């Protein structure tokens, strides 16, 4: 009898052990996506739509022609960046909810440089615009880290509220100094051609910025796992006490992390201004920050995961947009799909976590401490 019991325990342990590796993370993400789409499919039933048909159409529409396929990449570009802006901070157990505001600061910096320095050769305008959007939004966000480090301010709240300030600054500038020369709408003039990011596929919005965004994800990955800064960020994120005990200056880490996160969200602004809209419009892309959080969660805050998650969200977006245009489904169904996927990802984190705790408990009860 006891033999049997041991056997079932070891099978169970083996099963639980499996829950630890990366494969499980990927599998549970895929499962969460499946569950999220199933649940939003059930909602479609209430709207008298056939979900299977709807999903088929989304895929069909998303890949119907090169324009739509290109659009997936175009849409994922800023998403990757705002998701990194959340995910990178998350690695240090910091919550950057202010990517939206940081995005706007980046937009303003990029459009300002592009308008004023448009006479320069394209390479210089683009480089300066990119640098300005990174720097402006980075400095903007580093204040969140500063307040956290020196006044123990809650970074969640400060970053969230900072978005409102950024929106107000944008409103002012787009109705004042940066407003179009016609003076009619709260938007800027079109930026000169020299300041536009060249397209990768002509006649589409797929511009070279996508590769820069993927490059940013790779750089962030490299920083996290191969540099001293990344080492410190992970140490502070996973055990603040141990980091302090080891002489790591967490105040500095808070500020640097927010500087980089803000910079990333700022570059997203550069991508939209110089790559897609070619101007700044009051309150445009109003949910790019929130969408970034969802993408980061789906990607488990892993830079590479974020790239794939952003592509998935963009596919739903592109295919879903055409679906809602051609059927009676409301456009909010896209948000519902994305939202329920994220909810299931969070649930799967929770379950994974419970399993891990259970596993450690079992180990302790069964074996006790061993050398």
């Amino acid at each position: 009898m006891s033999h049997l019991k041991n056997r079932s325990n070891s099978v169970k342990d083996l099963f639980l052990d499996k829950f630890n590796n990366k494969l499980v993370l990927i599998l549970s993400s895929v499962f969460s996506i499946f569950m999220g789409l199933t649940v939003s499919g059930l909602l479609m039933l209430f709207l008298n739509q056939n979900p299977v048909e709807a999903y088929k159409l989304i895929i069909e529409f998303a890949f119907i022609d090169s324009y739509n396929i290109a659009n997936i990449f175009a849409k994922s570009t800023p998403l990757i960046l705002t998701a990194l802006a959340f995910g990178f901070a998350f690695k240090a157990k910091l919550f950057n909810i202010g990517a939206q505001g940081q995005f706007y600061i980046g937009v303003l910096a990029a459009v300002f440089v592009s308008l004023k320095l448009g006479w320069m050769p394209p390479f210089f305008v683009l480089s300066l615009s990119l640098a300005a959007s990174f720097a402006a939004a980075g400095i903007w966000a580093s204040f969140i880290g500063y307040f956290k480090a020196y006044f123990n301010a809650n970074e969640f709240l400060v970053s969230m509220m900072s978005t409102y300030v950024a929106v107000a600054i944008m409103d002012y500038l787009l109705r004042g100094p940066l407003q179009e020369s016609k003076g009619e709408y709260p938007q800027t003039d079109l930026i000169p051609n020299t300041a536009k990011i060249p397209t990768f596929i002509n006649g589409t919005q797929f511009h070279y910025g996508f590769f820069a965004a993927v490059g940013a994800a790779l750089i962030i990955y490299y920083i996290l796992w191969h540099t001293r800064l990344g080492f410190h960020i992970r140490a502070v994120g996973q055990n603040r006490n141990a980091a302090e005990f080891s002489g790591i200056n967490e105040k500095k880490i808070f500020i640097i992390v927010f500087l980089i996160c803000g910079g990333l969200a700022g570059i997203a602004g550069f991508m939209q201004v110089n790559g897609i809209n070619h101007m700044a419009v009051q309150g445009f892309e109003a949910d790019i920050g929130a969408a970034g959080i969802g993408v980061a969660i789906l990607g488990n805050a892993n830079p590479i995961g974020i790239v794939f998650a952003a592509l998935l969200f963009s596919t739903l977006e592109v295919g879903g947009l055409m679906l809602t245009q051609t059927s009676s489904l409301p456009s909010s169904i896209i948000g519902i799909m994305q939202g329920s996927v994220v909810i299931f990802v969070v649930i799967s984190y929770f379950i994974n976590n419970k399993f891990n705790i259970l596993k450690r408990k079992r180990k302790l009860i069964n074996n006790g401490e061993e050398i």
Partner: protein
Amino acid sequence: MKYLDNVFIEMENINKVFPGTVANDDISIKVKKGEVISLLGENGAGKTTLMKILYGMYKADRGEIKIDGKKVNINSPQKAKKLGIGMIHQHFTLVPVHTVLENVLLQLNESYAPKYVENKIKEIGNKYELVVDPSALINELPVGFQQRVEIIKALLGNSKLLIMDEPTAVLTPQETEKLFKFINEFKSEGNSVIFITHKLNEVMEISDRIIVLRDGKKVGSINKKDADREKLTQMMIGREFDFEVKKNEATIGKKIIEVDNVSIVGETGNQILNNISLNISAGEIFGVAGVSGNGQEELADAIAGLKKISNGDIRLMGKSIVNLNIREIINSGVGYIPADRHKVGLVLEMTVEENLILKSTYGQKYFNKYKLLKSKKLKIDTEKKINKFNIKVSTSKALVHSLSGGNQQKVVVAREVTLGDKLLIASQPTRGLDFGAAAYVKRTLEKEKSKGKAILLISNELSEIMELSDKIGVIYEGEILDIFDRNEADLKKIGLLMTGVRGESFEK
């Protein structure tokens, strides 16, 4: 039968496991009506966990609770209150910006007219001498009064059993006296009190019966009339005081560390360290004996720069290190094996190699001038350390939480021994380890001593202190009461000093 009739609460075979520790291992206790029970044990013995289970804040993994002989399921503090159990937490659960009355109203399950409750507060205050102004703001009240509010809260809920978690830790002696007066009054009405503490003099003063916990297990239950300090200390610390003391002549070198009149004053003005002075020379182990929670951790933290001292000086090789930051102290050759390896010693979700260089990330040892990781060097060095310190691990890239406790501790030891080439602080270095791993750690300390390092050893295990130290200092309530050479150490004397009995009372 009469005895059974008198039992109010029974906890039977309570088990609670947290990841990393068994907090309660098959503990059974009984509380009779009209009885004050002291739950005695060192920090981390499982006292608070057990009481949080009784109060419905934690769920036991196994075991059951009976009230008046009937099995009950206490799944929340609300339920506990309904059953007549009240708890005064160590850290008060009051809203600082609200008034006394508002705080009391907040926790009542039913709604009462404020005026009625206000009168109740006054009534209880007069009856038990717990007078407090209902309209006073909590954050303007002294700590002793805040505690009164907590007690009043519990009494208004008609508690028949009060659990008090280290209630005297924040009180002045006068306030403590008042508290004890209240406990006696409360008891005389047929109510019960469970008093959690690690202070022996209070135990002897207030309790009828004493239950001792150690390492999550119940060691025993003893009536006060059969108990004395010595016996209780033995139960609490777990060893009889009669093991052989090795005599070994140390070759003492020059002074490495001098702690000079160091004091630390806590936030509420309480004295955490009180004028501590000690020296440790090269090739010497200085053992700090004491019941845990008497300032040992703070002393170690102060030397390592983790805690600011209020007074005094600490010198390493003759130079003051008081104003250096943590990193500078690490770099000047101080290694520190902390008491809690999970909380401060390791980053469990990082790999073995990353944990080994946690304190060596500055400078160019493992990161080049562009601050990029030298992964090849790290791998080679890690494998060397894994061999040298006999760490059992499949790969240097294994996450530390997948290692057994003994091997986790070896990772910490490997790191700190390498860094601490002048001074090594070892705080509870063998806690929670099995025999083999503990022996390994002890051998390592002796080896490092023979290399000419100064070692500060802090341990709750008196046997460990006696086995390893060349000098022994006894700490009690933040004060080093006496320092002995090992050769002249008198175990009985040390045991009594640990419980706060000072020199002059030996003669009696």
